[in-house]
């Protein structure tokens, strides 16, 4: 253990692997601004080294909006300090990350109510209202 401690832990220069990704985000943001085109980047496919993800998070920072979805585990949604660039962090029920994505959009898709659930929602709402009024 003592030997291990003698080895200094060094923060690695991250720019090398981050650069193309940041450029991709910038490019997507321009398309969103110009034409309203949305874009998703799967960070699982990125050859991140140690420190790269942290450096990305530092760069993106935190913006005004954030959210949270509980479905098959938690999903944390946070807008970065650059409006339109969102971080979508999916976890399973045991708190293990299952996906990490960047969405360049005005509203992340997971936050929008799925149309398939509107009928059920309507029925449930009606039922709940009826129940309230009968009581």
């Amino acid at each position, binding site marked *: 253990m003592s030997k291990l401690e003698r080895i*200094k832990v060094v923060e690695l220069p991250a720019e090398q692997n981050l650069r193309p990704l940041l450029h991709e985000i910038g490019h997507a943001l321009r398309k969103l601004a110009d034409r309203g085109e949305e874009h998703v980047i799967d960070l699982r*496919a*990125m*050859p991140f080294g140690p420190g*790269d993800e942290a450096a990305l998070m530092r760069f993106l920072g935190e913006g005004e909006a954030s959210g949270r979805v509980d479905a098959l585990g938690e999903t944390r949604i946070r807008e970065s300090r650059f409006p339109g660039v969102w971080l979508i962090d999916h976890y399973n029920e045991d708190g293990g990350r*299952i996906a990490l994505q960047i969405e360049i959009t005005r509203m992340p898709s997971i936050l929008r109510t799925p149309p*398939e659930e509107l009928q059920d929602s309507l029925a449930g709402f009606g039922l709940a209202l009826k129940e309230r009024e009968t009581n």
Partner: protein
Amino acid sequence: MSDHNTLGEILRERGVSRRGFLKFCTATASMMALPPTMTMAVAEALEKAPRPSVIWLSFQECTGCTESLTRSHAPTIESLIFDHVSLDYHHTLQAASGDAAEAAREEAMHAHHGKYLLVVDGSIPLGDPGFSTIAGISNLDMLKETAEGAAAIIAVGTCAAFGGLPHAAPNPTGAVSVSDIIKDKPIVNVSGCPPIPSVITGVLAHFLTFGGLPELDQYGRPMVFFGQSIHDRCYRRPFYDKGLFAETFDDEGARKGWCLYRLGCKGPMTYNACATMKWNQGTSWPIESGHGCLGCSEPDFWDAGGFYKALSIPTSDLAGAIGTGLGVGAAVGIAAGAMAHKKKTDAEHEREPLTVEQLEGES
């Protein structure tokens, strides 16, 4: 759970919301290394995906591949995929044993003839069937018998895919891969020692989602996972390009995370998804933890010339070759040179002076 249920139905039965399902599809697409734009296509396909029967055969293997798949500390999305398949035979995992186990296999083979998925880990000994048998049946016979009715075969691990460790020189058991024996079925090789668990499930997910096998490379490996080399996706690649290398495992270069090429990293010749998928729920992978790639997903990686020898270094005895060359060259050179020198001096000694008369006589 009924065999006729689709994955969509199963998930809804378990109270998974539409958002949850979409999240699952996002994760699945990501696992299959599909672009995020494919998520909706995956969702559509998974909604209707039938529940396949899976028979898992283990031959000359170390159970590392099964361990890789099942020893995930936290159940992840992989488990959902596995929950969905009907694993009808896996002699390490199943509760049944002996005759009952074999009966289950035969029953699955008959019930789902032509539709079940056969997963194989381990190599098959051809030297003597007695090297590896299950319930008295040789691996070769069991593979042939079970493969006959399979829709497709997934060879999991380098042993099943390429022969692996048992196949390494001198290959005492005459071990071969699945594809050396089975020629008439679609085979996917998911190599690695062991393979990355999400690559195994990724292939299963692909089979589930699209009902067929993904695009394969020349070794029968799914392109999406094996299409690029470790070297090309390695986060340490910029150091290679700059010429910055760790010389030992504890020097400054190693601490600074420089390229491990000189320490024998086989990243340039190895095709796998470690650099992006990583291991242990995306925690790290060999190169990130400071050790070169061994090349475990490549054929004959055991015999490819030493884990700690840089790829460009010849595997054999170069010093010996140089020594032999020097010695023999000097010996032959001195002999040949001495002969030539003698010829030259002989010519000098035998020389008769040339006279103008002789010249005039000729010209």
